[in-house]
């Protein structure tokens, strides 16, 4: 799967431009100065291997990721240690360390929000299902509908205006402190992004949990559990929720994997220096190596996350286990 992603990414960023009429020289021109002569450009294209067959180029691309690469600009050889995703057009810095720098921000945002939305989404969903048709059910499902429909840049802006600039309870956008530096400040700064992001997801999870619980609570094994004399709370949690959680787990794996690759809207709204913001900047600057790096990185997380979900599935549902 990861191989496929590397091929697709490579294809998009190296092969498609050539189909679209881009010549090796045009590609190479991005790596040299503005005032370069055609001869220089040609030389660089040659050195960077843009004239080689696609397969060879792909091999080199993979080798760069796993072993590292050497770039020969003519003016000297530059070492790019593995995983080498190339150099930024703009800053000339290698892409990988930049990505690593941004990771803690996105990780912090995703993990905190995930915790919030799973806890709130699932418990609201369970309570709504148990009190179906009640005031609580209607209120929470109405809120959930709002949560699903309102985009982050709206809820984010509104929350910033109200809580940061209006009431002054939370720091304004752009505040970021490393966890290792000051954990309290870290959590305080991230509180608003966490809640905003979690609101969006909690809504989906609440609706999904509610639907799942309504279904499982009507199953025969729930009746059996009650017939055994089990307390209602245990019937709900151990027998009902246990079965309803499986589809939620799948969704969670995918959502979380996607978020790790960059919560673009949230990070942009709150100007958090994470991977999402990095991706936006890279795209805006047409900084191909950076864009490619972040895409490869994000896609990798989605794959890893769905793999982990598959493993967890076997743990959760014994019927999936291979005998």
């Amino acid at each position, binding site marked *: 799967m990861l191989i496929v992603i590397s091929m697709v990414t490579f294809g998009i960023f190296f092969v498609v431009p050539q189909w679209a009429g881009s010549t090796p020289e045009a590609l190479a021109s991005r790596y040299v100065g503005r005032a370069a002569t055609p001869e220089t450009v040609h030389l660089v294209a040659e050195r960077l291997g843009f004239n080689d067959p696609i397969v060879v180029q792909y091999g080199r691309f993979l080798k760069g990721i796993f072993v590292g690469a050497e770039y020969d600009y003519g003016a000297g050889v530059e070492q790019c240690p593995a995983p080498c995703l190339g150099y930024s057009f703009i800053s000339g810095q290698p892409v990988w360390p930049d990505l690593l720098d941004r990771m803690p921000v996105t990780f912090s945002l995703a993990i905190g929000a995930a915790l919030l939305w799973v806890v709130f989404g699932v418990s609201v969903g369970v309570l709504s299902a148990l009190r179906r048709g009640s005031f609580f059910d209607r209120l929470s499902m109405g809120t959930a509908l709002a949560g699903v429909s309102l985009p982050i840049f709206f809820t984010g802006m509104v929350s910033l205006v109200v809580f940061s600039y209006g009431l002054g309870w939370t720091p304004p956008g752009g505040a970021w402190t490393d966890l290792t530096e000051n954990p309290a400040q870290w959590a305080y700064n991230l509180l608003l992004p966490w809640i905003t992001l979690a609101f969006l997801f909690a809504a989906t999870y609440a609706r999904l949990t509610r639907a799942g619980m309504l279904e499982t609570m009507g199953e025969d*094994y729930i009746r*059996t559990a009650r*017939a*055994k*004399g089990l307390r*209602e709370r245990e019937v709900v949690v151990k027998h009902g929720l246990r079965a309803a959680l499986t589809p939620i787990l799948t969704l969670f794996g995918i959502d979380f994997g996607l978020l790790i690759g960059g919560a673009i809207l949230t990070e942009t709204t709150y100007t958090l220096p994470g991977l999402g913001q990095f991706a936006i900047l890279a795209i805006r600057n047409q900084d191909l190596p950076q864009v490619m790096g972040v895409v490869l990185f994000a896609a990798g997380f989605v794959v890893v996350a769905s793999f982990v979900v598959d493993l967890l599935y076997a743990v959760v549902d014994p019927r999936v286990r291979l005998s």
Partner: protein
Amino acid sequence: MSFLDVKDLRIHFPTDDGLVRAVDGLTFSLERGQTLGIVGESGSGKSVTSLGILGLHKGGRAKISGEIWLDGEELVGASAEAVRGLRGKKMAMIFQDPLSSMHPYYTVGHQIIEAYRIHHDVSKQVARKHAVDLLGRVGIPEPAKRVDSYPHEFSGGMRQRAMIAMALSCDPELLIADEPTTALDVTVQAQILDLMRDLQREFNSALIVITHDLGVVAELSDDILVMYGGKCIEYGKADDIFYQPEHPYTWGLLSSMPRLDRERTERLLPIKGSPPSLINVPPGCAFHPRCPYADRTDGRSSTEVPDLAPTERGHLVRCHMGRTERRTLWETEIKPVLETQ
């Protein structure tokens, strides 16, 4: 007073389409060591009755009235928590489809252990040993190994045995089996019925078997109660119901039962029509639209609900026809046909 006494039990469900009278004035009693078979078509209210005794309608939309006395305790008015404490321990249930009735994500052992530990404050190891014992007792080979299997890894018959083991885990004094063999192969059905009879003797529990299959009750029951449209229409000793039945519906049930000990000279005689909707139970005798003798009651069958009255032999029948008329019909028209079938 008997061990189990049900008096004028009514279980109604208000719905948007009207009131569903699933059980409408049911009275019966049962002693320890005895077996009662409740027979009827789908939708006659038999399963609703069993769930009602276990208190599984509580907290739901059901309106329950009447009395259920279990060993001197009244259950209808009791708190949900009090009835919960009795469930599993004093009264237990075996369900129809053991695959859907067992939780797919937990091992069979886990589910038995859970049932046992609800009512017994013992360690997991002790409960596990008990679970292995039980699985062995209900005839599951290699119980120490199978205790860690999941329900889907069992065959249908083995699952029903495991379900029985789970129901028996706390030595219940009242055991209700709701269509215990319907989902099973015919060969396995006989084994399960034998097992239930043996276990009942061993535990001296009261057993209610709910089924649409007269063969099952013939095998097990001391008493039989025939239900139709939420009401009891015939109730008495098993022998009376099988050999001296007096209700046309029971006649219909008997003649639609395949028998291997008779020659296949004629086709089965199914009861015409389908069971009544419990929202619009026909006025008068609920069976009258399907009853071949409805014209013999001077029109009373469609206006007046017949009483449950004793026959000459002492069992109860709900029918407008006179005793002698019913007996003559049985002796001259029904019995000969049944015997030649």
